[in-house]
């Protein structure tokens, strides 16, 4: 183990948070998308984070290897329908199905993701400084 592995840890955090920012962007962009059927409607997406744990033989002590994105889940919230007979996407009964994206949730997610991203950048910067100081040892 060395300070180098912190770059991997912080890097995994940054990658995970940027995935989260990506899904937020996708959700917000599709917040007003409509479809003719509830199945085709856009569902709000969210990444699923999990800690990476690695076991070195029988050694139980592990500092952790960062975070990983297990996958992207789709929200199971109800798809709202609107009566819009004039809409070209309307079905036979005149209904369109919009996305179940909640913009407030997405904005909260965006702020949280960007703060966490900044935290990881800060970790990387501090680590870089410490390594630099170590290299200058004895000068």
């Amino acid at each position, binding site marked *: *183990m060395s300070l180098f*592995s912190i770059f991997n840890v912080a890097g995994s955090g940054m990658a995970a948070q940027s995935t989260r920012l990506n899904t937020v962007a996708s959700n917000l962009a599709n917040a007003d998308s409509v479809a003719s059927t509830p199945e085709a409607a856009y569902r709000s997406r969210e990444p699923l*984070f999990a800690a990476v744990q690695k076991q070195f033989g029988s050694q139980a002590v592990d500092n952790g290897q960062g975070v990983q994105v297990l996958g992207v889940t789709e929200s199971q919230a109800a798809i709202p329908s609107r009566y819009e007979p004039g809409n070209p996407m309307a079905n036979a009964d005149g209904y369109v199905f919009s996305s179940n994206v909640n913009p407030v949730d997405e904005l909260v997610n965006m702020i949280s993701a960007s703060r*966490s991203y900044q935290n990881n950048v800060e970790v990387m910067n501090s*680590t870089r400084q*410490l390594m630099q*100081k170590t290299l200058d040892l*004895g000068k």
Partner: protein
Amino acid sequence: MSLIPDNLFGIHTRALDLWQNRTEVLANNLANADTPGFQARDIDFRKVLAAASDSAGGAGSLALQAPTPGQIGAGSSTAAGTPLSWRTPTQPSMDGNTVDEQVEQAAFAANGVHYQASLSFITAQIRMLRTAIEGQG
């Protein structure tokens, strides 16, 4: 008998090892700040120091003994065997995550300072030796 002790930098190399290890743990906490159910961990310096003192058997030296000539010393054995403890959260969260970003950031910053302190101790030791070798203040 040599005037220069076997373990030139004393406890500071071990301490450096520990701080580095702790940096890694804290970085992992921060990386998992949004992972549901993740429980933050930390290294208790006092505990590790006590363990290091115990293992030395009161011989005054904290380094692992290498009785066979040519045997490589412990190296990063501190790092490998460092016990981790769970962080007690100050506020409960809905997803079971116990990472408090402010606490972790503060610990990370303090840890960096400790690391630099250990580094400067070692630097001072090197400077002292250099002075002794060169023989001029």
